[in-house]
């Protein structure tokens, strides 16, 4: 243990503790900007500087470990002045006339710079703004980058590289020309960006945000010739309330449905329904592959970030991916066929909107092989904006139920939202179909939790089914390499975002591991509260097969619910 004195308080901390963390232990929060607990130390913004006795210069507390006997002062006049000047310099290069742009900025209500300004007691900016005059990157279907707002904190660079293992961004150039950009400034949409949106969660400013589609949805809602159907993904219901000031972990399903009805959607369906359907199709596919010597391991297909990832980085494994469309696309396809036919609505008049925790879903909806299934994919944040715009007091709203036909779901479907959920849902069904018995211990805990890669073996009759789960693309990459090196599995669940969809790039800000854990608890709580816990018990799914599709894996099911993939270079 090391003895330190921080602002006059003596304490002992473990060796290697940074000044920043030691101060936290002394209940002092040193302001930070480029620092992020989940990322490597960058030491660039220097907002966290402190005075250390006998040191000529100020020390960056995020990067310097305490030494025996160190005496630290966190808010001397020198420190306060330097922090303020750094802040002024930074703001002046943040965007031309930040004063005005805060009003139109995507992060107007949760900007780290605004927060920092308050923490530092900034009351005046003596420097006029420097216009960096860079153009916005609109090349992606999912994400917009506004480089003039970028302050070069490297949080997105590090998140993309360290957590997602991709590295779409780099600092380019040097000196005043130094900028965060993509390969030769080609734009995110023209490169191996998988649209996961984790960079948005990293960014302290509005330099990164989703491509907004809520205006298009407003247009559809106000177009009397359109029949607008909405679906909501499992992970949205455990996060949406945060956008209205609630603590993470509140299950908000019925209020959300009620709000959607007030917004004017003609039908509110549940993507959980098609999650159950996915299990039927995917489970059947898996059994088929195992029994007929098909390509194994079979890889799940519901995370569009992961799909684009494998298309870029492991195209040789495309045959391993389940041919099932994702639940979003399945539901969209069924609305425009099953639902349309049943209700005699011309499919051209139907607009399908989906509310997703995900930015990659926007890209998925635009994939040429599936265009038309879903018209607009909105993020959880965009839905929150729409609700706020209408002024619905959503927190106190009387709850409502999803509409019939594609509104019922099992607990297995809701856990799709968390890492390991698809696997657990599949096991519950596959086990029962194959053995005729219930999975012993229906709560299949080995695949739960935030461990990066989880493995499990389940005896299913004569077969020992080897399963693995990975979330966060750097873990996904590790698992893919294990497979490439010969490790054998039958079934693997891959999710692009840390924590699974609950940690998706379209979720309310902030989304970090602490928040994700809370949402995860809510997901499993919601599973328990469901009447049905297994996908094949979902009565509306059974009805769909009876009335329309025949059986899982049928020709019609294939036509509507399955897809194919495209190898992409780097």
């Amino acid at each position, binding site marked *: 243990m090391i003895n330190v004195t921080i602002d006059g308080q003596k304490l002992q901390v473990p060796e290697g503790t940074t000044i920043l963390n030691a101060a936290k232990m002394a209940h002092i929060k040193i302001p930070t900007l480029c620092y992020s607990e989940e990322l490597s*130390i960058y*030491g*660039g*913004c*220097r*907002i966290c*500087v402190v005075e250390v006795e006998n040191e000529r*210069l*100020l020390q*960056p507390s995020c*990067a310097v470990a305490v030494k025996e006997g160190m005496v630290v002062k966190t808010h001397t006049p*020198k420190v306060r*002045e*330097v922090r303020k*000047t*750094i802040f002024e*310099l*930074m703001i*002046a*290069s943040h965007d031309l006339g930040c004063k005005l742009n805060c009003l139109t900025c995507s992060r107007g209500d949760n900007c780290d710079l605004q927060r920092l300004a308050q923490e530092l007691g900034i009351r005046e900016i*003596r*420097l006029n703004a*420097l216009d960096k005059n860079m153009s916005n990157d609109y090349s992606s279907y999912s994400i917009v980058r506004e480089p003039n707002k970028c*302050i*070069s904190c490297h949080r997105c660079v590090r998140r993309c590289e360290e957590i997602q293992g991709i590295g779409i961004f780099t*600092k380019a*150039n*040097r*000196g*005043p*020309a*130094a900028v965060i950009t993509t390969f030769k400034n080609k734009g995110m949409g023209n490169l191996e960006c998988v649209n996961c949106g984790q960079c948005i969660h990293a960014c302290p400013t509005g330099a990164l945000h989703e491509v907004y589609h809520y205006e298009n949805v407003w247009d559809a809602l106000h177009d009397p010739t359109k029949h607008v159907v909405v679906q909501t993904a499992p992970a949205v219901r455990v996060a949406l309330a945060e956008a209205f000031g609630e603590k993470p972990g509140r299950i908000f399903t019925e209020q959300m449905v009620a709000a959607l009805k007030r917004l004017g959607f003609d039908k509110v369906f549940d993507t959980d329904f098609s999650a159950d359907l996915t299990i039927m199709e995917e489970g059947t596919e898996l059994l088929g592959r195992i029994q007929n010597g098909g390509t194994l391991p079979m890889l799940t297909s519901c995370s569009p970030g992961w799909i684009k990832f494998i298309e870029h980085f492991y195209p040789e494994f495309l045959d391993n991916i389940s041919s099932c469309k994702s639940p979003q696309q399945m539901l969209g396809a069924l609305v425009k066929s099953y639902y349309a036919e049943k209700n005699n609505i011309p499919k051209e008049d139907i607009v399908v909107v989906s509310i997703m925790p995900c930015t990659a879903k926007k890209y998925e909806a635009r994939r040429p092989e599936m265009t038309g299934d879903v018209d607009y994919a909105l993020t959880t944040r965009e839905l929150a904006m729409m609700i706020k715009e209408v002024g619905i007091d959503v927190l106190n709203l009387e709850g409502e139920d999803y509409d019939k036909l594609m509104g019922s779901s099992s607990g297995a479907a809701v856990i799709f939202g968390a890492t390991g959920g698809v696997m657990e849902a599949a096991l519950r069904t596959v086990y029962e179909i194959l053995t005729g018995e219930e999975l012993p211990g229906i709560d299949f805990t080995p695949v739960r939790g935030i461990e990066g890669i989880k493995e499990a073996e389940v005896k299913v009759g004569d077969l020992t089914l080897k399963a693995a789960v990975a979330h966060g693309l750097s873990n996904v990459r590790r698992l893919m390499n294990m497979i490439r090196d010969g490790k054998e599995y039958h079934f693997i669940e891959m999710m692009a975002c840390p924590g699974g969809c609950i940690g998706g790039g379209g979720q309310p800000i902030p989304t970090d591991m602490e928040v994700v854990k809370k949402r995860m608890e809510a997901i499993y709580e919601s599973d328990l509260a469901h009447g049905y816990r297994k996908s094949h018990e979902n009565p509306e799914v059974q009805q769909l097969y009876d009335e329309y599709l025949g059986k899982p894996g049928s020709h019609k099911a294939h036509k509507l619910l399955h897809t194919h993939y495209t190898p992409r270079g780097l």
Partner: protein
Amino acid sequence: MGETLFLKRKVSEDYSHYDFPILKKVIKMRREDVIAEIKASGLKGRGGAGFPTGLKWELALKEPGDEKYIICNADEGEPGTFKDRFLLENTPLQVMEGIIIAGYAIGANKGYIYIRGEYAKAINIFQDAINHAKEEKLIGDSILDSDFSFDLQLVKGGGAYVCGDETSLINSIEGNRGISRITPPYPIQNGLYGKPSVVNNVETLTAAAEILAQGGKTYANLGTDKSKGTKLVCLSGDVKEPGVYEVEFGAMTLREIIDEFGKGTTGELKFVIPGGVSTAILTDDQLDIPYTYEDIANVGSGLGSGAVVVVSEGHDLLELLQNVSRFFMDETCGTCFPCREGNRRVYHLLKEAVNKGGFTSDDMKLIKDIGKTIYLAARCGLGQTSMCFIGSVLEKYTDELLARR
């Protein structure tokens, strides 16, 4: 008083058959004894920071692990500095001998010399010298029949002043952006490819070799108590005979250096930058001090890399400020906010001042505040020293600058 020639050789002499006599002697010595000799000489790093060389070597030798590196810093890029190029072009084999000796002393079997990419001539000469040494088996396995093997690789810089900073230089050799690393850990513990590494300046290593030839005592007898030995001074700017001169510490004043070696100024002297653009200026009345680390520090500046730039009357002060400011703005690696944004902002404030026809006291205060912030909070030496020149000019010529309006 003339030059004190300790490490500077006569350019006219032919050293092409130089076969490392000093190395031959050193390689029979114990490593500890080699280091003791350097420590006895009192040699300090000539790259600017002035860290005692013997101590650096000793620390590196003591580091555990058998993979270590010696890196010769030949990225010389500070305006006004050209002594390392002088050594590389004229006496490359002496430089190389110094590198190998340092490698031997710290137990490094691999060395790098990082020469700035613009030094095309020096690069060619030095690469030839490496090839020659390899042919003569002065580099390679078991050199000079000892059990010491040593390989030397030349790395060409890419045109970035900040790579002269030792941690940036290491990043650059590794094939990364040449940005500084957070210290500690220092290169001695965790340097190139994570291994203990010593980075030394060209002049330092050349002097070290010569010290081992002539003895640490001989060297320590030159100079003053705190500044031992000699220093290569690069004289440029408004002097009649610019060039590289070897000066015994304490034997001459700054003014004498300018007058005797430089043969005086080309105009009426205004001020002198005693150690390159990252040091504070000295005015006419401050020049009668002995050329030593301590005497220059006493008057608030530093001797840096040894670049003495003389500025006479007749230049536009604002233009000079802008020139130096532009240098730091262009050359910051762009990693830390105070240095990147601060230097950019100062440049813009100076440019505005030119457009407005002068300074206001508000401008001055802003620049001073920013300067203080960069100094106190920047991540590496580039930022920390970037405002020395500008700050000192503002301080010493406040009235002149304000009066322009």
